[in-house]
């Protein structure tokens, strides 16, 4: 492209609403006005102070909530085993820990986050130069859907629990609203991560699509070449069939000689097509959605039969530059992915811990509630199976979506090698083969694996392991709960017998015989409980 490359629109443009919301709630400390005007995330001292204030406020409110609702837990502590109580206490605070991790990490990373998006913008520019376009417009839609889903889930859980299970005659019960804050803030933070990850995945896919388009174009070119060469001169067609296809470039040259000026003009129109599409698209993503976005390399929707196809793959030296650049961009995206993973590693670890614990706890307390045992007051949503299901869907949805997206992204990055090889196979050219081999060796070493602090990778295997872990913990907990319940029942029945025995003993307390009578009563009444 000879013209000056226009600025690609930054990814952050799509984040307007999300950023505004995050800023108000206190998820991100960056400067709001600079974001509005220049679409950059910059450090801001005021934002930091505001965020710390919000964090302190949330922690204070949450502790107040725990304190005011712990009245009901007093009796619970007496009846329940210590382990359950300690675990319950831990579970009440894990939400707060998770929220604090998110916010503190966001504070520490406030400078790096802006750099990350700047790097993504540079990548976009490079991709644009390679005529490989990424459609950002669906990201805004995605953000909106996620936000709406989050708000629906949070409100539903909050309101149903409040109406159904909280005693709302007391004004202190309004504090229950605070219980939704940690999960809401966590979800907002994770939406940032998920959407950025999705954007990376799209870039990988755009690279793959570009490579695949090269392949389809070349295939078309070949069929066109053979088909067209068939008509004017049968001799050439024969040679193209018998000879290996690496002489295709020669044929193209021959055809150019034969076709003369007609092809040049057609090719020019083809080139124009390629140029027009990106601009139409970029206009489109600026908000003026007049035309449907169309990829520049997509084969024409109404292919003219006699149109001259051109294929970049037939010119190995020309395509080498492009493939090399794509490979480097791929590496840069991988690096961005790693950096992003580094920024969010602690929040993800805490989210996974939270998801695991809350999922197990909610199911366990649901079991407890169906057995009419008392449960910690903050887990009162477990009393209603329907709300429990919603809570579980919400929590697991968050975790699973992140894991799924990470998995898909690393798959998409690995797919590039396959697409590259397709190019090599289709072109069937020794020189190109060497390039493809070299580049695919490089691609093999671009690894992007998402992990939580290096403790475990985020892929389907981990998801399987976690679900297995939840199941086995549930079985262990329920089994022991059963056993403890049986033991407790035995003690209670014994105590009640003892009480009646005591009454009888007091009533018949006269003289020396009372003790023997008492013994008699106890022994007779004890017998059924000892069976």
């Amino acid at each position, binding site marked *: 492209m000879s013209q000056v490359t226009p600025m690609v629109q930054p990814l952050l443009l799509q984040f307007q609403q999300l950023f505004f919301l995050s800023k108000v709630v206190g998820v991100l400390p960056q400067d709001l006005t600079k974001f509005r005007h220049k679409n950059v995330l910059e450090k801001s001292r005021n934002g930091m102070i505001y965020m710390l204030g919000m964090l302190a406020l949330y922690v204070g409110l949450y502790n107040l909530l725990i304190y005011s609702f712990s009245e009901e837990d007093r009796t619970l502590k007496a009846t329940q085993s210590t382990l359950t109580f300690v675990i319950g206490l831990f579970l009440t605070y894990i939400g707060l820990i998770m929220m604090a991790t998110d916010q503190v990490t966001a504070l520490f990373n406030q400078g790096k986050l802006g750099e990350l998006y700047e790097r993504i913008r540079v990548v976009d520019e490079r991709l644009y130069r390679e005529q490989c376009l990424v459609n950002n417009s669906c990201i805004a839609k995605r953000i909106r859907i996620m936000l709406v889903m989050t708000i629906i889930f949070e409100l539903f859980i909050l309101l149903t629990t409040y109406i159904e299970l909280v005693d709302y005659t007391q004004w202190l019960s309004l504090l229950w609203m605070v219980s939704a804050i940690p999960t809401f803030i966590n979800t907002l933070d994770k939406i940032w991560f998920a959407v950025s990850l999705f954007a990376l995945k799209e870039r990988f896919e755009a690279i793959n699509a570009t490579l695949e388009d090269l392949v389809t174009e070349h295939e078309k070119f070949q069929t066109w070449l053979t088909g067209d060469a068939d008509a004017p001169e049968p001799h050439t067609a024969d040679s193209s069939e018998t000879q290996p296809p690496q002489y295709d470039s020669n044929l193209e040259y021959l055809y150019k000689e034969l076709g003369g000026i007609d092809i040049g003009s057609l090719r020019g129109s083809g080139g124009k097509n390629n140029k027009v599409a990106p601009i139409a698209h970029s206009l489109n993503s600026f908000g003026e959605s007049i035309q449907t976005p169309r990829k520049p390399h997509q084969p024409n929707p109404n292919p003219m039969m006699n149109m001259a196809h051109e294929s970049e793959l037939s010119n190995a030296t020309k395509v080498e530059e492009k493939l090399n650049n794509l490979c480097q961009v791929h*590496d840069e995206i991988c690096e961005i992915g790693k950096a992003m993973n580094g920024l969010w590693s602690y929040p993800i670890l805490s989210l996974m811990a939270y998801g695991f614990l809350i999922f197990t706890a909610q199911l366990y307390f649901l079991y407890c509630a169906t057995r009419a045992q008392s449960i910690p007051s903050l887990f009162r949503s477990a009393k209603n199976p329907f709300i429990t299901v919603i809570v579980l869907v919400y929590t697991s949805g968050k975790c699973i979506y992140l894991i799924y997206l990470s998995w898909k992204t690393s798959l998409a990055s690995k797919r590039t090698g396959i697409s590259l090889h397709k190019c090599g196979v289709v072109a069937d050219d020794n020189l190109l083969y060497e390039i493809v081999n070299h580049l695919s060796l*490089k691609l093999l070493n671009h690894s992007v694996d998402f992990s939580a602090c*290096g403790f475990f990778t985020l892929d389907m295997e981990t998801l399987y392991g976690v679900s297995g872990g939840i199941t086995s*913990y549930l079985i262990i*907990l329920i089994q022991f709960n059963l056993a403890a319940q049986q033991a407790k029942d035995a003690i209670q029945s014994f105590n009640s017998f003892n009480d009646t025995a005591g009454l009888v003993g007091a009533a018949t307390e006269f003289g020396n015989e009372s003790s023997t009578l008492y013994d008699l009563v106890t022994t007779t009444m004890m017998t059924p409980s000892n069976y």
Partner: protein
Amino acid sequence: MSPNSWVIEMAAHKSRLQVRRSLSPHPHALGSDAFVRSPHAPVGNPVFEDIGTILSVLKASGLLPIYEQVSSFEVGPPTRTNEFYSFFVRGVVHALTIFNIYSLMTPNGAKLFISLRETDNVNQWIELLLCILTYTLTVFVCARNTKCIIQIMNEILKLDQEVLRQFGVALSNNCNFSIKFLLLIAACQAYIIFIRIHVLDGVITPTTYILIGFYAIQNGLTATYIVFASALLRIVCIRFQFVNRLLNGYSYAQLLGKSRRQLQSHMESFPEDSLFIYRTHNRLLRIYKSINECCSLIIVCFLGYSFYTVTTNWYNLFVQITNNKGVISSHIMQWCLAWLCLHTALLTLLSRSCGATTNEANITSQILARVYGKSKEFQNIIDKFLTKSIKQEVQFTAYGFFAIDNSTLFKIFSAVTTYLVILIQFKQLEDSKLEEQLQETN
């Protein structure tokens, strides 16, 4: 040995690297310059100065050979008398072990246990036996691997020498952590001995003192050996880092803002450097593998012992905290905390240093993939290395059972949690049964 020394050295090192970069069209000039400088290098300084303390402790206890220093870049086998000394120490250790096992069988040994219940005694027995087993194994393996250790040291030193000759960079070892860990181990063990003797009542015979003291020494030396292994890994890791930094100078991110001519002169030294890098990388991998072979059996044993200790101590701690009688024995709590602190720190150190080294070793090919070679010659050089490293999985394994890295730490702690949940539930069940029985007897 000040904590800042490393930083200062690194700065000097970097500037030297940069100097070299600017002079890179004339590598020979600088090479000869470095060669001239090399006699000024401290000849009298002992090798591996950073881990000197830990080395002397291990040498004194017969776990490492008391090698002779031939030059500043070579160590020789131990002399006859020193060899005999190590042999003697090992003999004493084995004799003491047998004596200890014998005295544990006698009723005298039973006093050692701070008994709470029958199961706790069994636990302590198992812990003691595991400790004895681990230490005895360490001594045996070390005795067998004397030559191997000296070979590893020589290889590392030879590599250092080559780096110094080619680049004029003396690689620092940055192993100050070893002294901190040594102090931690000593402090924990001394504290544990103190508590143990403090808790014991009645007349304490010398045999008991020997028992307790030897037990602490066994623990301490095994832990020291683990720190030594981590220090070796750290040393290898720093070499890998040097190689990676060298290679990183050629990646395309560094070449972005340069003109064509600059680029060409920059890439000129690549074939030569890449040869050095490949050779060094291979040698480092070999060293890494031989360290793994030397230590893996000990590490497996230690991991098992550590896992057991951590689990039982957490359990004890929990039992103490939730004691229904309301009497929290502060001795047992301190004791448990000391053990936990020691073992957790060691496990973290080991898995982190293994993970870091593995990571650095694996990252080399990733950096190489970022080197942009325009000409066929460069591409072939790059391809050769990348092809070689496709299926070459670098890992630090525990005797082939499992790979040790950060995820090992995670797995160990999740396993500890699972066991704790089960154990605590059983204990509560036991308690409620006990209550029932008590009420029945009333």
